[in-house]
């Protein structure tokens, strides 16, 4: 954004120069220009500060010209703005042609250059465009020094946008910390208490620092204020971190939920142990990849919409693969769960190798549509990526649709009937075989949807499914068989617990701890969190 503003400024420069050259010239005092051109380093810096504080719209192009080396002097009286072979006298506003021979570059040493950079940012604080002002305020946050204080104060008075205002007052306070006036320091410290920026913490710690036995800050009252503000900032930072962690936990949970929902149907409702479930997720991800490539080749203009098309595609492809599997293999193994387990493992090997043969063993690139990049800024330093937010929403939507399908449609009624009492359902005319195929296809299709979602946030490769299969089984087992509600609680719970533990013990140990927890949990409640109570002792 900053770069954009700079480019804009540079692009508009000739036009503004033309303005400068004519009537509006009078707005900038000739003395300031002389100071800029002929003054010593300190004079220049003072002039730069005055320019940026003036809020004058012409200050920005002038400063930019100085930074770009377009300001030159000729003799003792002429200050020229040289662009190509044209030059304008900045003091008189007249065009000078031909170029005088005795031109000299205006000396800009490093100190001046630094203050120029900040001043340009400060000058942008007066830009009419809100986003330009916001960008400038962000840049100033980390670079401003006391020379910019007047500019920031002026901008603060003019500013109407709350977000920019807050940023500016934080920046001003951090500059004022170094003030010699005690009341100013205290006021600044009180303002800083509102901040949620990690660098504020460092600033306040600096106030409380001890050097060789005595405090850097001599005044005890200032120190106690600083202590108070520090605690306020720290608690804000901790809250922010917590929000970030819970969000990433919810995000992981929604991913687990998507991965496990299909399994909750095939395993939970139908009792089929499908170890190829992970590979059905992978099939969905590759379907997304293919749709993406088709869009890129045939409809590059509509690329951002490819996801809309990929979602039903992933569902259909994975669902069809699932139905084919059910018809060809799994149907013959109902009631023999251990054999189903081995056969579906074989299927998963074949699916993986097929994908490797067709698409290669390397990961493939699935690009996010542009509206998914970036994120929602919850607080300073905490950005919640849109892609993750979209997946949380998507998981909720899929969940809702499955719930509606199972409770409000005829197919759902049949699935539940077959689950509860296959023989009786069959007697009343439910086509149990077809219901099996459709239910399995539904579970597989949901796995495909999970794959489509996962392709947006992670690598897509032949091994994609392997990394989710253990996790999704854990979710279903923990949640309890035959219960969608259990699956939801288990997925979100596992996701959040995992992320909270991660902050404390590192990713691998957190994962191990969660697995061990599940192993122990199952000892206590073999039927999962939500057990269907029944009198059947054994199958």
């Amino acid at each position, binding site marked *: 954004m900053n770069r954009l503003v700079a480019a804009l400024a540079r692009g508009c420069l000739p036009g503004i120069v033309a303005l400068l050259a004519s009537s509006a010239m009078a707005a900038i005092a000739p003395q300031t220009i002389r100071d800029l051109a002929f003054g010593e380093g300190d004079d220049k810096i003072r002039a730069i500060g005055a320019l940026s504080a003036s809020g004058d719209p012409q200050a920005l192009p002038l400063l930019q010209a100085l930074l770009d080396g377009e300001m030159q002097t000729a003799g003792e009286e002429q200050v020229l703005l040289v662009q190509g072979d044209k030059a304008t006298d900045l003091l008189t506003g007249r065009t000078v042609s031909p170029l005088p021979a005795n031109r000299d570059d205006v000396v800009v040493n490093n100190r001046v250059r630094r203050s120029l950079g900040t001043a340009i940012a400060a000058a942008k604080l007066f830009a009419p465009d809100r986003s330009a002002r916001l960008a400038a305020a962000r840049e100033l946050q980390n670079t401003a020094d006391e020379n910019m204080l007047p500019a920031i104060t002026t901008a603060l008075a003019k500013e109407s946008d709350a977000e920019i205002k807050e940023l500016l007052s934080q920046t001003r306070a951090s500059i004022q910390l170094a003030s010699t006036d005690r009341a100013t320091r205290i006021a600044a410290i009180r303002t800083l208490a509102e901040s949620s920026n990690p660098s504020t913490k460092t600033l306040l710690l600096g106030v409380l620092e001890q050097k060789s036995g005595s405090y850097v800050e001599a005044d005890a009252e200032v120190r106690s204020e600083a202590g108070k503000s520090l605690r306020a900032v720290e608690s804000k930072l901790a809250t922010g971190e917590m929000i970030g962690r819970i969000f990433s936990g919810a995000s992981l949970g929604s991913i687990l939920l998507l991965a496990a929902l299909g399994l909750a149907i095939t395993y939970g409702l139908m009792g089929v*142990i499908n*170890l190829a479930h992970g590979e059905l997720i992978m099939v969905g991800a590759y379907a997304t990849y293919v749709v993406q490539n088709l869009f890129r080749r045939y409809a590059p203009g509509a690329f951002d919409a490819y996801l809309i098309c990929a979602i039903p595609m992933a569902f259909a492809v994975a669902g069809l693969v699932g139905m084919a599997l059910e018809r060809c*293999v799994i149907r*013959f*193994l109902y009631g023999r*769960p*251990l*054999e*189903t*387990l*081995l*056969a579906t*493992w*074989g*299927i*998963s*090997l*074949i699916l*993986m*190798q*097929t994908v*490797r*043969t067709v698409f290669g063993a390397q990961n493939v690139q699935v690009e996010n549509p542009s509206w998914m990049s970036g994120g929602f800024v919850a607080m300073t330093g905490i950005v919640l990526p849109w892609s993750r937010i979209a997946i949380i929403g998507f998981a909720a939507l899929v969940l809702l649709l499955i719930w509606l399908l199972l409770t409000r449609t005829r197919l759902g009624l049949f699935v539940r009937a077959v689950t509860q009492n296959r023989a009786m359902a069959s007697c009343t005319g439910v086509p149990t075989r077809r219901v099996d195929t459709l239910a399995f296809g539904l579970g597989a299709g949901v796995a495909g949807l999970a794959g489509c979602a996962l392709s947006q946030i992670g690598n897509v490769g032949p091994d994609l499914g*392997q990394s989710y299969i*253990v996790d999704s*089984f*854990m979710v279903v*087992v923990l949640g309890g068989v035959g219960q969608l509600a259990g699956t939801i609680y288990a997925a979100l719970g596992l996701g959040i617990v995992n992320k909270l533990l991660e902050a404390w013990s590192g990713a*691998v*140990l957190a*994962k*191990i701890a969660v*697995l*061990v927890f*599940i*192993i*122990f949990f*199952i*000892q*206590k409640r*073999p039927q999962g969190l939500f057990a269907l109570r029944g009198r059947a*002792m*054994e199958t």
Partner: protein
Amino acid sequence: MILGRAFMPDATLGAPRYLSLLSPGGWSLYGLAAIVLFFVFPLLHLTVPADSALHISDYWVTLIGKIMCYAIVALAMDLIWGYTGILSLGHGLFFALGGYAMGMYLMRSIGHDGVYQSDLPDFMVFLDWKKYPWYWSFTEHFGYALALVVLVPGLLAFLFGFFAFRSRIKGVYFSIITQALTYAFMLLFFRNDTGFGGNNGFTDFKRILGFPITAPETRMALFVTTAAALLGFLLLGRWIVMSKLGRVLTAIRDAETRVMFSGYNPLYFKLFIWTLSAVICGIAGALYVPQVGIINPSEMSPANSIEIAIWTAVGGRGTLLGPVLGAAAVNLGKSWFTKAFPEYWLFALGLLFILVTLFLPRGLAGLWHSRKKRP
């Protein structure tokens, strides 16, 4: 036919009890296997010159040695799955733990011959560790390492099994949590800080009991030890399944509730065979590592453990010789396939999983029996 009958659990009981373990035909087959493995193999490998047609190359010695280790694992899997009906998807873990215990001893006996010529193994030097972590103490003693080979998988299996069987976790649930167990251990061993070499595991062994580990004589000694273990465990397995204990185990497989109602507590029977099976796996792992020369955490991946189940299923559950033959057949196929058509091995393995479960529920041994019954 002899083969089939020899290892059937319902063979007739004869006069001296240990002789009645196998039928006369079974014993002669057993003796033949012993002669081939103990005498013919070493002679053909060590004394016959390399250019002779009868010479057995290093490649075959390593391959057969490896396959015998796998066969022991398949046998252990058969005891718990084929006879007791508990499918473990975590047997790769016990195998790897035994291997790691042996690997610790082998790492210690590298001495100063590592790349960094330090007291510590190279990976510890790399991590900038100054001394061995506590769990490495005494591992320089071969005897202690052997004890670890038995105790570590045994204790882990005992504790895990006790809690799992006590809460009457069975069937698919048990399979899935054993899978989670081995997965958790795999993640743990992949960490460098765990102190077992992380990703790379242990390798570059130099010697065992002072003998250079790559010398043909040492390799042959390991081969013969493995063969002896395999034959020994076959007899042990036979003895167990023929005993009353074995009958109870089979009964648990077929109708656990009825066993309970008949006054047996299935917990201790299951726990015993589960722990024994884990220990046998650990021993197989310990024999495997010096022959193959490497152990790393990928041995604990869930995929490996499932493959063990397929060896047993291919050979035939509920027979003892079946899993041994199954492990041999699948692994010979694997080494042939991965050389001839590397990209098709997974297709073949996948098809094997599907076809065996669909059409050969009793495995190769089942094929044998049905052929025997038909005429």
